[in-house]
């Protein structure tokens, strides 16, 4: 019933439908108010009634039906009926709050070739139109995937103009978006809310098998009066070509200085006929074009070299291809600089642990990178070169005093600290986390229940492979106290790996040691190695001279003095935080201290696989939702629109039919008397 009532903006007026009985009642009253006549010619009445059983009776019923229909149509008109794909779940009486969860990822910029309207713009236009109709008086809140910050809107039109709704080159993370929504709804205790999630249904953004969905389902189910709708743009432009720079290295060969690049062009499906695509390279402002033939789904231009000025020590560039469905993947920025070494400090009281950590940290994934590992005892910790070091591994009691402040500043500057438990855990804490005590682990308790595979240190690889943490054998572990972002959870619900809450950088607590007496971390190797390398990469972003980064809010910070070299102009995007959401090249410092950063869309944005309805069911589980499939630039399929005109037409037709049916039969002309 509520589904039906949801179809009207003024459902209370539907009580007026009872007036539909009026013609029938009047008819019955009219019948009751008959007069009585003594009559002799009954044989004609009987005969007429017998003849009249067909059409005339039907006509009378039709007249009544038309009168009822006209009244019902009138009531429907004043009740302001709505029509649209979200009917029955996402419209209806205005809710207390309306939450718009907007995927601003790069892939949402895929456009309709005729109208030029992107998926994001189409979604915003339609949601805005719907809100204007249905959400009068509701609090409108926007949460976008790039910032995850709730933003209250004055009116639905803001959706079209606000900077927070414009396109970005960032990745989409639907569970994070829903988490932010859940957090907002929980904190603000909204009585009832409509949640509209606008997404292009990319599998990598949704991660339907990820561990966060269970918490999300539970959280949303606890909230009363929540209606969830997904506005999905699952179509993929099959002729869209994307360009990615996989590598950009500065190489000196004798008297020559070259930029060596690996460039990949790809599209969702192989073209029917080979396509020649002019690829434009812009390096330090100098432009060159190379034609690339695309005959498969993907083509790589490996080792493409561009000769540079001999004295060039670094710089930036962009690779561009002609415009197509998605402008966001038609260019890829890159920066280059002479490679330098990345210092890593291992502060350890356990020589075996230090050795294992040093081995894993000192073998970089990139053959041109150099990781310089420095081993220090806890007493030597003051010797750490805080400005140059990318990662500090701390396997000692948590420091206090000046050392603790230095370590915290180090993290706030965007570097990484990885804590392993000391022999004797002390009471000190770091960013809200501290060590508890050592515990012997039984087989049942020590099994890994879940780990965060969608982001952070233990995320799946770019190709989607898991880090096999489920097979980790645990013999001894040190409990972790305090609240942080859980990366690994054991079967007994205890956290094994936590990330401290910090504004920048990363501080992780791993509750066991890598050696075989404590765990199989070093023996299995993969998770141990990858986590260390990722921690180094994360911390190294803020110290390398040329950094390839993914566009996101904290990719580069104003505090460090970064400014934009290329990409969108200052006029187009105000503020460094907003600029870091857009692809572009940035620099900081001058002369020898000059450093470059290229911000691009994440590789996952080029993965065109979309989530199936079954996967969607799996993700939402018992949570009720409705999916509205739409297309970029699609006109005439508004999410909701008032359809009173239809009822007006119905009423007019009903009245017309009634009038025709009521029209008296044409009388036969009387014969002229013979003259």
């Amino acid at each position: 019933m509520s589904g039906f009532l949801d179809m009207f903006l003024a459902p209370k007026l539907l009580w007026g439908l009872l007036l539909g009985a009026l013609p029938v009642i009047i008819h019955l009253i009219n019948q009751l108010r008959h007069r009585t006549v003594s009559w002799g010619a009954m044989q004609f009445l009987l005969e007429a009634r017998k003849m009249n059983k067909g059409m005339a009776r039907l006509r009378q019923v039709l007249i009544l039906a038309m009168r009822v229909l006209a009244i019902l149509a009138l009531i429907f008109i004043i009740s302001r009926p709505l029509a649209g794909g979200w009917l029955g779940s996402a419209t209806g009486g205005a809710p207390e709050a309306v939450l718009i969860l907007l995927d601003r990822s790069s892939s949402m910029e895929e456009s309709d070739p005729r109208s030029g309207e992107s998926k994001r713009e189409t979604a915003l236009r339609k949601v805005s139109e719907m809100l204007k109709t249905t959400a009068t008086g509701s609090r409108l809140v926007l949460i976008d995937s790039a910032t995850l910050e709730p933003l209250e809107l004055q009116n639905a039109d803001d959706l079209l103009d606000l900077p927070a709704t414009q396109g970005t080159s960032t990745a989409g993370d639907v569970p994070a978006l829903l988490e932010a929504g859940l957090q907002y709804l929980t904190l603000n205790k909204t009585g009832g809310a409509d949640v509209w999630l606008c997404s292009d249904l990319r599998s990598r953004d949704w991660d339907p098998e990820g561990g966060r969905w269970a918490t999300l389902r539970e959280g949303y189910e606890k909230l009363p009066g929540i209606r969830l709708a997904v506005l999905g743009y699952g179509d993929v432009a099959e002729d869209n070509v994307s360009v990615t720079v996989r590598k950009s290295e500065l190489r000196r060969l004798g008297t020559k200085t070259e930029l060596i690049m690996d460039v990949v062009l790809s599209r969702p499906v192989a073209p029917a006929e080979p396509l020649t695509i002019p690829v434009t390279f812009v390096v330090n402002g100098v432009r060159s074009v190379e034609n690339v033939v695309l005959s498969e789904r993907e083509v790589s231009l490996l080792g493409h070299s561009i000769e540079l000025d001999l004295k060039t020590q670094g710089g930036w560039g962009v690779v561009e291809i002609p415009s197509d469905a998605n402008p966001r993947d038609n260019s890829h920025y890159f920066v280059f600089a002479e490679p330098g070494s990345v210092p890593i400090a291992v502060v350890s009281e356990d020589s075996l642990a230090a050795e294992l950590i040093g081995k894993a940290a000192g073998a970089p994934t990139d053959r041109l990178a150099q990781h310089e590992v420095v081993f220090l005892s806890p007493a030597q910790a003051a010797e750490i070169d805080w400005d140059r070091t990318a990662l500090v591994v701390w396997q000692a009691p948590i420091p206090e005093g000046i050392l603790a402040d230095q370590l915290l500043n180090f993290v706030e500057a965007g570097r990484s600290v990885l804590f392993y438990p000391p022999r004797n855990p002390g009471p000190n804490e770091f960013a809200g986390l501290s060590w508890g005590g050592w515990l012997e682990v039984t087989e049942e308790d020590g099994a890994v229940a879940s780990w965060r595979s969608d982001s952070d240190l233990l995320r799946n690889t770019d190709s989607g492979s898991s880090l096999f943490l489920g097979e980790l054998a645990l013999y001894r572990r040190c409990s972790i106290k305090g609240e942080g972002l859980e990366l690994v959870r054991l079967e007994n619900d205890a956290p094994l790996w936590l990330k401290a809450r910090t504004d920048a950088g990363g501080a992780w607590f791993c509750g066991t040691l890598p050696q075989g007496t404590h765990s199989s971390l070093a023996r299995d190797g993969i998770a141990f190695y990858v986590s260390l390398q990722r921690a180094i990469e994360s911390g190294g972003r803020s110290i390398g001279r040329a950094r390839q980064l993914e566009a996101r809010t904290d990719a580069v910070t104003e505090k460090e003095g970064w400014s934009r070299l290329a990409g969108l102009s200052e006029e187009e995007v105000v503020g460094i935080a907003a600029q870091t959401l857009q692809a572009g090249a940035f620099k900081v410092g001058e002369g020898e201290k000059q450093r470059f950063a290229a911000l691009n869309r994440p590789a996952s944005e080029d993965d065109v696989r979309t989530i199936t309805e079954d996967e969607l069911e799996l993700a939402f589980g018992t949570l009720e939702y409705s999916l509205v499939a739409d297309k970029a630039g699609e006109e005439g399929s508004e999410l909701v629109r008032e359809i009173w005109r239809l009822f007006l037409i119905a009423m007019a037709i009903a009245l017309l039919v009634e009038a025709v049916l009521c029209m008296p039969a044409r009388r036969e002309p009387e014969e002229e008397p013979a003259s």
Partner: protein
Amino acid sequence: MQRDYPDPAVLAKLGGLPLFARQAMLGVVSGRHRSPVRGSSLEFAEYRKYQPGDDLRRLDWRAWGRSDRYYVKEFEADTNLRLVFLIDVSGSMGFAGPDGKTKLDQAKRLAATLAFIAANQGDAVGLYAAGSEGLVGEVPAKRGGVHLGVVLDELDKLKAEGETGMEAALHAVAETVGQRALVVVISDLFLQPEALKDAFQHLRFRKHDVSCFHLLDQKEIDFSFERPTRFLDLEGSPSMLVDPALISKRYREAVQHYLSVVDATILDAAVDYHRIDLDAADDEVLSRFLLARAPKKR
């Protein structure tokens, strides 16, 4: 007993119009009606050859002088008329017009006036009533003023009730009235036209001169009702609630069909037929009836 018929005003308007039979009548006394029996009278009929035994007084001597043959002059015999009324007293005859006068009242007035005229010209008058069980009242035709009083008294007693038994009554009259008579049927004829046809033909077969006053109100033909109306059957059947808007067209079709069949039946049975509206003035109805029956001048 007070009665308002025969109305002197109506009689005055009729101005002494006589009642004629359309065919020869067999009577025992002299009257103004032709008799099928030839005799001596004032009206010449034909010549016939003399046969031995004929009355010599009726021999036409002038014809003998002219042709030298003996002819006897034949004259039509004038005789009196038997006027028999058959009045329908079924419930439907209780149908009243706006002034409250019923069809039966109208039938009584017409019958009484005609009876008076007939009695005055020396004809015999009889009265039969057709009720639900056939003939329910029976006054055989007789002459004389006293008998007229009996007929009028009997008319007074008639009441409209029950179903129609007109068909049986018509057959009964055909059989009961032995000699040729002018049978005046006054009824609304609400019975199947086929049955009517048989009954009229039966009367004609018995050599009766049949006249029919068909009493039918205009409302019964037009069915000019607008609001839903409950029709109570005057003959006792269950009532019917009818929306005229739904049914009037079909009703009129049924009436027209019925009237066309009645017309065909009347034509076939050579009945002197008069359709009479409840509002029609008695003097107009009767003068039209009497004038139509007057012999044409030669």
